[in-house]
């Protein structure tokens, strides 16, 4: 199957006058096939949100430099004019944000925010749009949808707001949906509801979903393929079963070891990753490259601090490491 979205060598640098660029995303490549759920996982500051904003072309116009290509149906989104992009946003690709309260307009009823999309992109008339909006709210599991159309965002709970946001994102049945930490602000029982809903909608509509999260648990239950980001680069990519059974990159391995497991024995010492992202080395430096993870890596060799590791393919897996975790140890 051909890919719906192909991101190739995406690089986002934030520029400031008189200062060196801050490279947030550093040569990220991935693709998404129709109906597939792809995860982008990483800790804060790894560039996962910037990647999604770059794909949606929602980064501010000034102060950054985006290079590489983002192709949807073979057409480079980065080359589109602003108005052409606006046409596609919402219709072909749409986004769900982390905090539903700050991404909904607080002074406009929720219903109007849903119908806005319908009239803008699908050219519906007011009454038809309202009917459709009620149906959408119903589909995402909001009880009493007709009455809820007139509610303001602050009158709804966090879970309901996130549902409303999903309804807006789905209004035009986009072929690609990007969800940026859609459940981080929610409680676990509500998170379970929302993840269930997303999974169901993807199965029903055949929408491709890019799931951005820091929670490996969310990824384990939902995604078909997982990309692990570290300091702006993909360090490992694999199918979810493969990734969790045998994590090869020391970072992925360490990340899995540092999560307390609900089904494991309590009280055991966690295998924490030492240091913090502040210790990172730059991937590329004038005097030669390095692996950014080296100072925190338990398997670091001399070469790790001298040569930038390349992303190498092994079967379905992509790995960027000089000294990966052996398969047997990773499986333990």
């Amino acid at each position, binding site marked *: 199957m051909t890919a719906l979205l192909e991101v190739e060598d995406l690089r986002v640098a934030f520029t400031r006058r008189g200062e060196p660029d801050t490279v947030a995303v550093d040569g990220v490549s991935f693709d998404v096939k129709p109906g597939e759920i792809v995860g982008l996982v990483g800790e804060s500051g790894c560039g996962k949100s910037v990647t999604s904003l770059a794909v949606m072309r929602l980064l501010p116009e000034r102060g950054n430099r985006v290079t590489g290509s983002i192709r949807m149906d073979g057409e480079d989104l980065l080359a589109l004019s602003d108005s052409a992009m606006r046409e596609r946003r919402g219709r072909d690709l749409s986004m769900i944000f982390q905090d539903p309260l700050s991404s909904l307009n607080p002074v406009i009823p929720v219903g109007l925010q849903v119908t806005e999309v319908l009239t803008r992109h699908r050219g519906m008339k007011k009454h038809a749009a309202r009917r459709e909006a009620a149906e959408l709210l119903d589909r995402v599991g909001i*009880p009493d949808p007709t009455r809820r159309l007139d509610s303001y965002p602050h009158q709804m709970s966090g879970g309901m707001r996130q549902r409303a946001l999903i309804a807006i994102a789905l209004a035009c049945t986009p072929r690609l949906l990007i969800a940026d930490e859609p459940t981080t602000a929610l409680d676990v029982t*509500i998170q379970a509801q929302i993840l*269930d809903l997303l999974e169901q909608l993807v199965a029903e509509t055949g929408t491709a979903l890019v799931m951005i999260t820091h929670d490996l648990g969310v990824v384990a*239950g939902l995604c078909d393929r997982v990309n692990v980001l570290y300091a702006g680069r993909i360090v490992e990519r694999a199918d979810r079963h493969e990734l969790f059974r045998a994590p090869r990159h020391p970072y992925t391995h*360490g990340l899995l070891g540092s999560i*307390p497991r*609900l089904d494991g024995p309590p*009280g055991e010492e966690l295998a924490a990753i030492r240091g913090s992202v502040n210790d990172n080395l730059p991937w590329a430096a004038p005097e030669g490259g390095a692996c950014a993870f080296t100072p925190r890596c338990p398997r670091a060799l001399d070469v790790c601090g001298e040569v930038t590791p390349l992303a190498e393919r092994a079967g379905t897996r992509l790995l960027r490491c000089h000294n990966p975790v052996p398969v047997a140890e990773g499986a333990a």
Partner: protein
Amino acid sequence: MSEETNGSAPALLEVEDLAVHFPITQGVFRGRTVGHVYAIDGVSLTVRRGETYGLVGESGCGKSTLGRAILKLTEPTHGRVRFDGEDIAGLKGEELRRRRRRFQMVFQDPMSSLDPRQSVESLLSEGLTAHGLSKGPEADRRRLRELVDAVGLPKGSLRRYPHEFSGGQRQRIGIARALCVEPDLIVADEPVSALDVSVQAQVLNLLSRLQRELGLTYLVIAHDLAVVRHVSDRVGVMYLGGIVEEAPSTDLYADPQHPYTRALLSAVPLPDPEAEDRRERILLAGDLPSPAAPPSGCRFHTRCPWKQAERCDTERPEPRRLEGAAPGHRVACHWAEQIRDGRIRPHHVDADMVDEAATLAVGAPEHASSVQEILGR
């Protein structure tokens, strides 16, 4: 942490029928009370010396208020808090201040709980001076250096300021600050929720190491069941102002008895695709009801898939131990035996819209994230 739940260790903290009700007032001069937010409503628990007690619950269940009420940072409406055999609920002023040396708190947000204009040394030595533990500048500095070293901060941290540290390091400063007055009990309110996973593990390991070395007693409050279960010897599950189930942490996962605990356990994502595919989710319908108008009877009956026609909506269940359950495993559910034996099957529940505007009928923000917000403070 301590491997066995030590049944014989003396109780360090006893909470009896504690309640915190915040008044909802209306009018320009806040004169008229139009209702109450029942943040904590009848909670009893015992924390033994040297153990870790974990409180888990979703936002709005009152777990933070409970922690604050225990430390008397919030005035309880009624109920008793006994610390080391002495009732501290009645303490005031200087008495209370002096007693606070023995129970300290670690806060959630390490940025807002550290004064940005104070150096780490000043932050840490404040407690020493306030409680008269200062032994002269030289000895103090030596003590602080030891402390900084014990929580794993780099050398030379004492002269630096909070903004120079990363999130995990700031949380370590918060822990060092709590430790510097040599407390018996540390209440940690969401100690790791603001941190990245890889750093979270470091802080959790640090907390358990300090407990082993210093014989501390912890009350850990968090929303993350996996974290709470990992660090705690016993876990209390809270729902809407009350503890619905209390169990040794191994039993909680092996034998959850309250319907809410079951739902909570099944909702926590596991970092294991095979386990994720196998397990059955119990999805709860709707949202947490408003603590200003809690449901009658069992607080959970509006969302419970096992709700029965009798008793659930009329009678509030008392925590009790089921036959055959582990010692110290208590559950507040009328039908726990029948649910455990599978004699009652779960059924579908329609999501009840929680419309606080209707129930409150005051100018408080609906679905406020904190009681402070409701009170407009």
